[in-house]
């Protein structure tokens, strides 16, 4: 494995205190370095690093930061998206558990770069322990003068708050998150305006993922170029945390340089292959929103662009491995139930369509499917795909489209046999 950036502290000390972070890492040296630079130079360094957002969309972080207007009459904000609600994803939790200070340091640097004096960590409601760890880490940072007024004598002020969500998947979508942060219903907003122009409380706002921010201190310490050098593809630097779950022998979080490992290598070489000697059926590679891959489609480099070329997405790197003991219809029914349950209900195709898909899948799984159902599902999914207010619609439609296309025979067996063949 290459030099570990983010997982360096993993599984060593839970809620690692500031002292531990200082002793075993560089402990806020990156912040010191950043505060000696001009904000623009910090952004330039991050741009140089080719760091892409780790939340799912893979947008270049430096470019996102540069969208924030220099002058603003209203306060600017940096918000850390710690909602980590994508099924199959659990990397951010590990960062917040084992090295909360890495992320907090990255956030303070981000605040300095964009000129924000207030910052929020929006953490999913279920992460109770992690929220406590973060609160404790913030206390330590305030006590050590890394937060508050005049940080390290630089004249830069920054306050940071932990805000706990109430358990909605949609609050991981950045504008839904901002609405929830403001105390409103967690519903995505119409874009434009984008958060960089009008975000939290009407101010220019950057929303970054936990892992993205946890990479920032390393970039400042070692330089953007060193970060950009890592990884197989030129426009994607650094490492990524791959969360592997499901029917493998060694599930867990694996850190590799971007794109330097293929899906096959990850599953068979690093995760010990499929458990109980069974055969692989399918892999959902980027959190449950990503279109599914069949067992023969594993030779893809795990990076944003190769995955896109393969018709799926790297997303949040939540890799869910499914073996042949599981029925494809049951799997997609479960995923579709999730999206129907989590749809905010604002826009028509998602509100009505996700539930319709779930009902049809339910019928097929129960043995009451009809031949016309497959065409109907494809149609309904296509009518959701790309036609909704936010990405949840695509996230619900993509998996259905790919499951029906790749495991069509299983759906047909259900319909013809009048029951689930595995049941």
């Amino acid at each position, binding site marked *: 494995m290459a030099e570990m950036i983010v997982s360096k502290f993993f599984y060593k000390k839970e809620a690692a205190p500031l002292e531990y972070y200082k002793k075993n890492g560089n402990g806020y040296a990156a912040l010191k370095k950043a505060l000696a630079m001009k904000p623009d130079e910090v952004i330039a360094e991050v741009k140089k690093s080719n760091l892409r957002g780790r939340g799912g969309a893979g947008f270049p972080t430096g470019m996102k930061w540069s969208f924030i207007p220099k002058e603003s009459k209203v306060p600017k904000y940096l918000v850390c998206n710690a909602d980590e609600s994508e099924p199959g994803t659990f990397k951010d939790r590990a960062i917040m558990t084992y090295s909360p200070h890495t992320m907090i340091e990255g956030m303070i640097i981000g605040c300095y770069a964009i000129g924000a004096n207030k910052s929020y960590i929006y953490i999913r409601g279920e992460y109770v322990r992690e929220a406590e760890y973060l609160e404790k880490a913030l206390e330590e940072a305030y006590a050590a003068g890394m937060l508050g007024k005049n940080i390290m004598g630089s004249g830069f002020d920054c306050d940071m708050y932990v805000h706990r969500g109430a358990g909605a998947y949609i609050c991981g979508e950045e504008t839904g998150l901002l609405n929830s942060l403001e105390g409103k219903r967690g519903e995505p907003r119409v874009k434009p305006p984008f958060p960089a122009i009008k975000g939290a409380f009407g101010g220019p706002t950057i929303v970054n993922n936990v892992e993205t921010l946890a990479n920032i201190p390393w970039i400042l310490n070692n330089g953007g170029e060193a970060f950009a050098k890592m990884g197989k593809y030129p426009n994607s630097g650094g490492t990524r945390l791959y969360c592997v779950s499901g029917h493998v022998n060694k599930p867990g979080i694996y850190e590799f340089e971007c794109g330097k490992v293929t899906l096959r290598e990850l599953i068979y070489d690093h995760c010990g292959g499929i458990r109980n000697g069974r055969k692989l059926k399918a892999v959902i590679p980027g959190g449950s929103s990503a279109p599914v891959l069949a067992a023969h489609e594993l030779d893809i480099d795990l990076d944003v662009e190769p995955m896109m070329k393969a018709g799926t997405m790297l997303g949040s790197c939540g890799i869910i491995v499914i073996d042949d003991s599981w029925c494809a219809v049951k799997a997609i029914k479960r995923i579709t139930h999730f999206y129907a349950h989590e749809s*905010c*209900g604002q826009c028509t195709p998602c509100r009505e369509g996700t539930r319709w898909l779930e009902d049809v899948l339910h019928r097929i799984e129960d043995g009451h499917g009809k031949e016309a159902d497959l065409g109907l599902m494809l149609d309904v999914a296509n009518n959701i795909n790309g036609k909704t207010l936010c990405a949840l619609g695509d996230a619900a439609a993509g998996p259905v489209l790919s499951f029906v296309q790749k495991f069509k025979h299983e759906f047909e067996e259900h319909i013809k046999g009048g029951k689930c063949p595995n049941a």
Partner: protein
Amino acid sequence: MPKCIIDGKELEFKPGEMVIQVADRNGVEIPRFCYHPALTVVAQCRMCAVEVEKMPKIQTACSLPATDGMIVHTKSAKVKAAQSSVMEFLLINHPLDCPICDEAGECTLQDYSFAYGSPDSRYEEHRRTYIDLDMGPVIKKNMNRCIHCTRCIRFCDEVGGFREMVALKRGNHTEITTVDGKPLETEYAGNLADICPTGSLTLVDFRFKKRSWFLKKANSVCQGCAQGCNIEVHQDNNTVYRHVPRENQDINKWWICDEGRFSFQFVNAETRVTEPVVRGEGKKIEISDWPSAVAEAKSKTKGKALVLVGNDLSNEEIRAIQAFTADKIKGADVFHYGTPGITKASDDKAEDKILRRTSKTSNLHGAEKLGLKGWDGSGKYESAIVFRGGRAAELTDLRKNVSGAIVGVGVFNQPAIDSYDVILPGLTYAEKSGTVVNWQGKEQKFNKAIEPVGQSRAVADVFALWS
């Protein structure tokens, strides 16, 4: 000015305008449910889909800022497919109860279903149903018909002034309701029925009274206060069924208040006096005929007379009364009257931040412009004539000022007529045309909607009989 191209037509726009606004201004029809020019854009219904060249995805015209040179298609195959898919989604849970729905005939969902939807449904699953809460005396909710456009929520927030309606739960179970299920408090609740694109919110008052396609419409001006909101009067068989606001950006935008909306009820009320009546021998009020009632009125109007002109009458009527009084009732004191406590134009104030005025009559400002002074309730007279259009106060204690006969000309009701000696029934705003002046000084014409009820006659006809 920058230009964009919609359906091949080059159209100018102001920077910042959305495509739907440019289309609306130029008569290009783009269907919509959630968009309303008065409310925030939410782009939720997805019905206003358009195709834009160089953009891979379908866009929503309500949230798409027009840019110079943008090429927009509103009728392409891709757009039609998107619109029909939205219609399919909206109709899978919508009950097919148009035959018993008050909205039918003027329902956006019904119209669009015909224009953009499919005659068949592929939906075979269970339909979503809700249990409805009482929303108060004005609005009846039927959540099963709701398409979640949230216009009502935004109306309460942004126009009504306070948050009364909310969305509860989420996803497919989202329910639009009032905060804590309380009845609506806003004085503008009727507008919710107007902006609701389906029969989800309908008027309690209009419920099951009339199919909308039977209604004939006349452009009118609301007589409920000095604001002069523009309305349509809807009638059938000479009965007024409702008032509906007409857009006028200078006066009432798209709205009217509930008081004005339901201020038509006296027109066809059973208590309205529509036959001439006189106080007979036994001191009892009795139905008479026009010639004898006018003769009675004429003979009893003598000595020092008080003439009170309701400022709920039109300019034309007030002028006729002024001419008549000067000619026939010499030496009379002529005043206008209307809302208790308001005797001059400067007493009329805004009652809230939206539309309502404290003068509850429509032509206070016009009456004053025509040279009339407001009556302060003082003076001793031997007889009196009271002209009333239907909204001015019903003067029931004139006896303390008047020793002789009191004649009422115009719209009077039981039991107020017990305080009068002769009633010559006149016309309401719905039975005549005329001009009123609102508080801004705007002269507005209202039109006759129905024929006079019973034996009611115009003021001019009364004067013709008098002389």
